[in-house]
């Protein structure tokens, strides 16, 4: 059977002075993902490989790592598609390393929370005790749909050259979500959200290197979202005004 050379960057911050690369021989088979290879190595060769995964189907976003130099999901990357004899797995850049391939996404999730990633509405009463629905037209949905697919895997943020040098930059994931909610016709919180982000360490720190969109496994295109936010700020026109946000639609029997 053909063998795959799997190289893993190992590093335990508690006991190791510096990261080191360790090579494992893994039997190669068709359709094998990098996660499969890593699990083989961990189960049969070296139990100490630090590794995080859950869904194995590009849904949970926990297996993000740098594979042959580029951030990817291990479960969504087939060994064959890499077209290489050797697969090198390293932890994602720009996140603290907990152990080996496991990075700390805590501050990344915090950045996400800071852009108020939910629909902000004036009608709090309606939110707590719904009497109807907020409807969207298909074209309104398609303005935000691709941005809703984000699984918070961190690949985009680890690829971003601004994140590499500016700790206060929210990163492409958070900014794409700021766009996702601000452009949502049901949302009324755009002005507050943008007041936070229209600053030195906000959207203007993005210089459109586009790597976030290049590595995103879910088709989110964060770079597009960030430039659209800039467009709204520059034109002075938010995607919609507070008053234009969707009103509650009530079914006929509740309308009287």
């Amino acid at each position, binding site marked *: 059977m053909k063998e795959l050379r799997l190289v893993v960057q190992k*590093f335990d*911050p*508690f006991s190791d002075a510096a*990261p080191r690369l360790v090579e494992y021989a893994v039997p190669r088979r068709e359709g094998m993902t990098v996660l499969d290879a890593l699990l083989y190595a961990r189960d049969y060769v070296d139990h100490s490989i630090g590794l995080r995964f859950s869904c194995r189907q590009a849904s949970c976003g926990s297996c993000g790592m740098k594979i*042959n*130099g*580029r951030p990817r999901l291990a479960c969504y990357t087939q060994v064959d598609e890499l077209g290489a004899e050797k697969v090198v797995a390293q*932890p994602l*850049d*720009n*996140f*603290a*390393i*907990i152990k080996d391939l496991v*990075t*700390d996404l805590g501050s990344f999730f915090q950045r996400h929370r800071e852009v108020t990633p939910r629909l902000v509405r004036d009608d709090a009463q309606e939110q707590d005790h719904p009497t109807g629905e907020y409807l969207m037209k298909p074209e309104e949905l*398609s*303005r*935000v*749909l*691709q*941005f809703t*697919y984000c699984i918070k895997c961190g690949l985009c943020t680890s*690829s971003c*050259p*601004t*994140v*590499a*040098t500016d*700790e206060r930059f929210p990163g492409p994931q958070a900014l794409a979500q700021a766009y996702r909610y601000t*452009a949502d016709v049901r949302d009324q919180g755009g002005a507050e959200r943008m007041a936070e982000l229209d600053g030195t360490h906000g959207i203007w720190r*993005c*210089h*459109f*290197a*586009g*790597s976030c*969109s*290049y*590595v*995103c496994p879910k*088709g989110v*295109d964060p*770079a*597009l*979202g960030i*430039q*659209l936010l*800039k*467009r709204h700020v*520059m034109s002075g026109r938010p995607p919609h005004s507070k008053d234009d946000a969707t009103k509650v639609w009530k079914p006929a029997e509740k309308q009287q």
Partner: protein
Amino acid sequence: MSSGAEGKAKNRRGLSGWLNPYHYNFERWAYVFQRVTGVAILAYVIGHLGDTSFFVGGPTGTGPSESSWTFISGLVENSFGHLILILVVLVVIFHGANGIRLIVSELGLILGRPSPIEYPYRPKSLRSVQRVLIWVAIALALVGTGWAVLILFGGSI
């Protein structure tokens, strides 16, 4: 568990994170080139200010003189000086043209609109007009450089 926070290695990439476009997209290469040429142009402009002011005032402030003119032109009027000037032309044209592409892109104008995604997926913003404009910037820079070579090494004009 509680001591974990101190034990984590930071791994923020710093300068090498933005300087190294290897493994990434075309726009990332343009981004690095834009920043590096920006610094190079700044260095050139400072040097250029130095040499022109040297000609105008001279280090002793005596005003334009034949000797200061001869000195400055002696620095530039040779193959090495010409090579530097040609590089300046290359870099300035690329930086300018690519800068215009970036300004327009950052206004969200040439990136396409958000749309339902289809697989195999390629991000819209990276296959829009803006990508063509990188090639246009490169082409303009090459044409300008060719022209500069003709002027400086062609023997005419």
